């Protein structure tokens, strides 16, 4: 667990980057620090591994005051990923990943073996290890950055806008990958971004900062979306925060019935009973089958696009299990909002 207790940071030029911050970042969870630029989120992150020292207040990692520890040793025990990856351009990918194990004196052979293992963990081919960073794409470089941070198996991972510089498609892939990794590794992650969608997607808790280094609200994404503390938070979450909340809820509890037969539109299946498309007399409309784990937002989107207002539900193998109606989805969406408000 990471604890901030009455932390202030004032820079020599007089600007206050962080103002009286008290915050707990739970162990094994993803805490996202979010806010517009100049709100102190990056400063907050960098105070955890002593890249910046606070002006006053105490920061503890695992119960130990960070300023009482040797800065270099502290940093070796905390994974650190930055935007643009910050890879060493003169070292191969493998040696980049092996950085911290080598600093810890693990020996070149052992460090490289560990690095090779991590290449696979972050979804890179083994032959990428012999390459130099500039020979990789932006997304691949960012994966290497994550692998480097994980090399010494630190319990805490600090990520400073790690996916800020890659295109939206790759960004989504990297987010998925991070969620998958986190399920496996269960690290305490502190993640800085200015993208609220990324925050909602990745965070177990989201801390919203306002210019001047004030923490405005820190809560689970659903709570934040359902009950923003003030207008600033509501504005930051955006006009579609109702829909964003639905992205957090799954379709599993929405009731389903048998697919309709004999109407204008029928759902066409292949021989394995996998949905192909909606068909009328002389028209076909594509169908996007949804699984139980998909979000209510995806279901709503599909039901709006569907000519019958029905969505096709499938099991893990893609075989049709039934359909759900727009009305049922709406009812559940309303229920989800009500629940979130009451829970909060």
């Amino acid at each position: 667990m990471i604890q901030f207790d009455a932390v202030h940071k004032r820079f020599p030029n007089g600007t206050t980057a962080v103002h009286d911050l008290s915050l707990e970042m739970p162990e094994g969870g993803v805490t996202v620090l979010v806010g517009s630029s100049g709100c102190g989120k990056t400063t907050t992150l960098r105070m955890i591994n002593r890249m910046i020292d606070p002006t006053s207040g105490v920061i503890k990692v695992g119960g130990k005051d960070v300023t009482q520890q040797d800065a270099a040793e502290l940093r070796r025990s905390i994974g650190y990923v930055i935007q643009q990856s910050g890879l060493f351009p003169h070292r191969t990918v493998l040696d980049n990943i092996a950085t911290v194990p080598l600093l810890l004196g693990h020996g070149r052979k052992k460090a490289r073996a560990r690095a090779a293992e991590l290449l696979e963990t972050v979804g890179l081919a083994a032959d990428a290890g012999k390459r130099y960073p500039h020979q990789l794409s932006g997304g691949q470089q960012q994966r290497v950055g994550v692998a480097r941070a994980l090399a010494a198996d630190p319990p805490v991972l600090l990520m400073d806008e790690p996916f800020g510089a890659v295109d939206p498609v790759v960004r989504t892939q990297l987010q998925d990958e991070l969620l998958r990794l986190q399920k496996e590794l269960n690290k305490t992650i502190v993640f800085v971004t200015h993208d609220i969608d990324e925050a909602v997607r990745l965070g177990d808790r989201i801390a919203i900062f306002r210019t001047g280094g004030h923490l405005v609200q820190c809560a689970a994404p659903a709570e934040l979306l359902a009950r923003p503390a003030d207008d600033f938070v509501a504005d930051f979450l955006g006009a579609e925060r109702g829909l964003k909340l639905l992205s957090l809820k799954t379709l599993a509890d929405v009731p389903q019935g048998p697919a309709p037969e004999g109407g204008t539109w029928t759902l066409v299946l292949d021989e394995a009973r996998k949905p192909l498309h909606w068909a009328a007399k002389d028209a076909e409309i594509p169908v996007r089958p949804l699984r139980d784990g998909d979000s209510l937002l995806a279901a709503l989107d599909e039901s709006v696009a569907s000519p019958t207002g029905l969505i096709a539900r499938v099991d893990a193998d893609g075989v049709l299990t039934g359909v759900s109606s727009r009305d049922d989805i709406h009812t559940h969406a309303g229920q989800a909002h009500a629940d979130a408000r009451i829970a909060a």
Partner: protein
Amino acid sequence: MYELFKNLAKWLTSGSQWAGTDGIAHRLAEHLQYSLLATLIAAVIGLPLGLLIGHTGKGAFLAINLASFGRALPTVGLVVLVFLASGLSMWPVYIALVALAVPSIVTNTYAGMTAVDPDVKDAARGQGMRGHQVLFQVELPLALPLIMTGLRLALIQVVSTATVAAYVSFGGLGRFVFDGLAQRDLVQVLGGAVLVAVVAIVLDLGLSALQRFLFRHRTAALR
């Protein structure tokens, strides 16, 4: 004119001209010895200075102004000055040559250090490298191409200027130039000058090629 070049070619290629203690081979060896030793001393002084200024960011004005100082320095004047002060020895020559070489080395080393991407330095610190580890494992290797350029420039300048050794009665290829002038032997003057130029060009090309080979894995921006 044609006659002059014919005589020059003969002078450069005749076996007797190359042999002996006042032959081309021996003068060339002396010239290289002066140049390499002076550049080496300059590197010992200039490299740590450039690295320190680049790493700490303190004293940048020195690194920047040293370049113009180096250009403005009258080498022959310095040789004569030290010669008058210390008497007849190699000291004046080495002091002048080192003073000539240090600015290029310091300035290029400093430039190489400041060209290192701040994100990369930040990441190095963030991974837990100490100051000296950031310097030797990240900054120095990344600055190395520009550092080598500085050393190369310094060496070329020194090679071209090491003729002044002969001005205060020592050897080197300058011997031919100054003796030729004294004896009104234009071919010998020209021969000495051509040899100095050829040595400088060969060293420049050779070291450039070495640099390209050493940094072949890097993008153009990092070479």
